[in-house]
């Protein structure tokens, strides 16, 4: 195990031989002691954290065509058991290598830190996510999200999901913080499904999918999973979409169960209870395979005996039972996964054919009377790429001058007080620095998620953005400046 034997590596390094080896490609021995690949970026700071690792915001220094473009860099921790390269990272990369869709995040580069075998994935940066958008409406502006925006967000989410499902990929971890929305620029208001670390190709798995540990944040977890289903399907994603749809309408999580933390894969009674209270008790008549589900069958906590009145969903979401949005929502929240509406069917639903029609820019549209200025993502400028903080992380992001410790040459925190370019999607090519094997062996260069056609960037940044940043700097962020990654996420993810 590499990690557990740092000494042997050190001694190898100390060996007189390796120092004078003819290195075939990029090395780390430059003066700033920074890997070569990293030098193509200006690190702005940390924007997210999860069990998988950290997410950083960075900007491209070169090449000039993409200069200043914002990039989100996801750093994976090494796998804990010292068993090689992180399987989560590998899985996310390999899936993203095969897929390409407007409503799915774009992997633009992969970097390797050979010293600790960790992987850095570079994505087009998206300024917003549904978690932050919902929170902004709930806590800051006190009015609901416009009908046009809700419908456009939902349609694009379904559009991306339909693409994934038709490619036999289940996301398995859909939740508001994983649904990104592009900020100002050519792709403004475009939805991007992100975080494929738990996604699976589901045709003919070699092992039951549940062997990977229970997934999906419990609030968005489908009832068949909560009841212990072993072989689940793309319908679990549709349940999560239903929960997200309701949350966009009401600004509150639909089923906010308290999570049972232990033992591994515990029975989540409270979460089921929350669902039953709103949707009514499931019955074998409505859901024929229900009696076969382990937790239902064992019934250790007497869920079968609970009886709830029939559905109160319409009153929770304040919709008439005859309205098209209610009809669509109730079809997404169908108990029986086999009867649950598919992404493809949902896209055809009447809701999307009536006014206001969904649009590509979900944030700004003809029928949006008042364009909401969503805050930019808080950035913790005190964290460097190694994830070590030079200040207490609990301090609010405040300073415009905090330059991250070990990143000489970055503009650090000062970036945030200067108008900066918003995330722009689209494809770009980066120099394949720091990936020796590629340079040596492949004409394809990096080969990772690239398209040579660069999409021109908008360079102008409005005064409005500046204002947003001021606003952002003032606000105290309970999530410690890690937008979209609420603290409870850590424990909700197994």
């Amino acid at each position, binding site marked *: 195990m590499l990690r557990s034997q740092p000494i042997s590596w050190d001694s190898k390094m100390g060996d007189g031989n390796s120092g004078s080896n003819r290195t075939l490609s990029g090395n780390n021995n430059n003066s700033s002691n920074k*890997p070569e690949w990293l030098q193509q970026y200006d690190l702005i700071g940390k924007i997210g954290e999860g069990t998988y690792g950290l997410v950083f915001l960075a900007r491209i220094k070169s090449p000039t065509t993409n200069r200043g473009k914002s990039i989100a860099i996801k750093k994976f921790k090494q796998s804990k058991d010292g*068993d090689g390269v992180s399987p989560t990272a590998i899985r996310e990369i390999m899936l993203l290598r095969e897929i390409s869709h407007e409503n799915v995040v774009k992997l633009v580069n992969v970097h390797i830190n050979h010293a600790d075998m960790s992987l850095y994935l570079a994505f087009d940066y998206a300024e917003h996510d549904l978690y932050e958008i919902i929170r902004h409406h709930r806590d800051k502006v006190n009015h609901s999200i416009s009908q046009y925006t809700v419908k456009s967000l939902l349609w694009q989410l379904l559009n991306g999901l339909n693409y994934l499902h038709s490619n036999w990929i289940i996301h398995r971890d859909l939740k508001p913080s994983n649904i990104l929305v592009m900020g100002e620029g050519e792709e403004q208001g475009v939805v991007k499904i992100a975080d494929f670390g738990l996604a699976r190709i589901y045709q003919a798995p070699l092992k039951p999918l549940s062997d990977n540990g229970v997934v999906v944040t419990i609030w968005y977890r489908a009832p068949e999973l909560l009841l212990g289903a072993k072989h689940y399907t793309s319908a679990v994603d549709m349940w999560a979409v239903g929960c997200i749809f309701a949350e966009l309408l009401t600004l509150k999580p639909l089923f906010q169960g308290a999570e049972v933390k232990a033992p591994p894969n515990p029975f989540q009674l409270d979460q089921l209870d929350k669902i039953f209270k709103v949707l009514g008790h499931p019955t074998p008549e409505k859901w024929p395979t229900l009696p076969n589900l382990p937790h239902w069958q064992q019934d250790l906590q007497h869920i079968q005996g609970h009886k709830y009145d029939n559905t109160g969903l319409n009153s929770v979401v304040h919709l008439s039972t005859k309205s098209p949005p209610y009809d669509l929502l109730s079809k997404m929240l169908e108990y029986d996964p086999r009867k649950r509406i598919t992404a493809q069917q949902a896209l055809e639903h009447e809701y999307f054919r009536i006014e206001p029609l969904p649009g590509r820019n979900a944030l700004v549209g003809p029928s949006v009377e008042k364009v909401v200025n969503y805050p930019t993502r808080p950035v913790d400028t005190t964290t460097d790429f190694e994830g070590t903080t030079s200040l207490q992380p609990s301090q609010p992001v405040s300073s415009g001058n905090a330059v991250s410790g070990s990143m000489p040459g970055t503009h650090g925190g000062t970036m945030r007080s200067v108008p900066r370019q918003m995330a722009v999607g689209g494809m770009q090519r980066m120099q394949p620095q720091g990936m020796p094997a590629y340079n040596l*062996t492949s004409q394809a260069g990096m080969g990772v998620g690239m398209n040579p056609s660069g999409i021109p960037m908008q360079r102008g940044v409005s005064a409005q953005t500046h204002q947003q940043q001021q606003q952002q700097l003032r606000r105290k962020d309970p999530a410690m400046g890690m937008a979209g990654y609420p603290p409870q996420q850590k424990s909700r993810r197994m």
Partner: protein
Amino acid sequence: MADFQTSTHRTKWIFTPQELVEKYKAANQRAIQALEKYGATLMEVDIDGSLSYPEPQTNAKDTADKHSRPKPLNIEEEQYMRVFYENKLQEVCNNFHFPHKIQATALIYFKRFYLQWSIMEHHPKNIMLTCIYGACKIEENHVSAEELGKGISQDHQLILNNEMIVYQSLEFDLIVYAPYRSIDGFVNDIEEFCQTKDDQLHMLKALHETARMEVDKIMLTDAPLLFPPGQLALASLRSSNEVHGVLDFERYLRSILSRQSSAHTISELIESLSAIDSWVRRYKFPSEKDLKHINRKLRSCWGLGSHDESKKREKKSKHKSKKSSNETQNMQS
């Protein structure tokens, strides 16, 4: 399974025979040049991840006479080594009772890896094990490196050391399509096509089984780098059908093409299937004598050839890490 049509497998990893030859030649040439320059060819992975050839032997210039200089492998000998280790790979997978899919994925990784590198540059045994290890990870049949190493009495550190290099060399295109699922699909389709009655099902079963064995053979050739998995499957079914005589295979091929409104003509398809067959016919496993000869050459390319050098190397390795000394031992084994 993501869509094969848009997959990296189809768009990046299916070559023409000419392209294959060129790639093998390029890797071989590069290793030969390294041998001339540095006197050895084995790549070392440094802590910073850069790859380098070892130090030139200090006496390389002194003993520049032709007899003592290590001789490089030629392209055919490299091919033999790949064949040998691909068979080993199947053996290891069978010992672990891994599913076919894992074996096939590991084999394809191994083949793709040695499109980028010469056998002389990376030890095929280590790479083979890392390919198996990676295939298990990707196919969700996770086996720890330690477990894998133990099962075959190999240092698992060698498996882990090469992991990143393997993924990089595969350009992180880790989803591969094996022909086994295609065979299953075609057999189901044939069942319908022939309107098989229950009492004839055993014939289909025999057809299926022989086809699987046929495709195992195909997987050991270069054919998986040249043809899509569906064609590999059809070639194996056609061969199997020659044994069992279950159906009029050409009629079946025509029916597939017409149903898929394929752009391919029947003659193109048959030509591909015959080309796959000929890869199997031309397959050559190296003789004991060949292997001995090649291994001797390989060891000298790795700086382990003559007694003098190997002693020197051993001395040096004592100062080196545990990892490199293990490497040395294993190379000699």
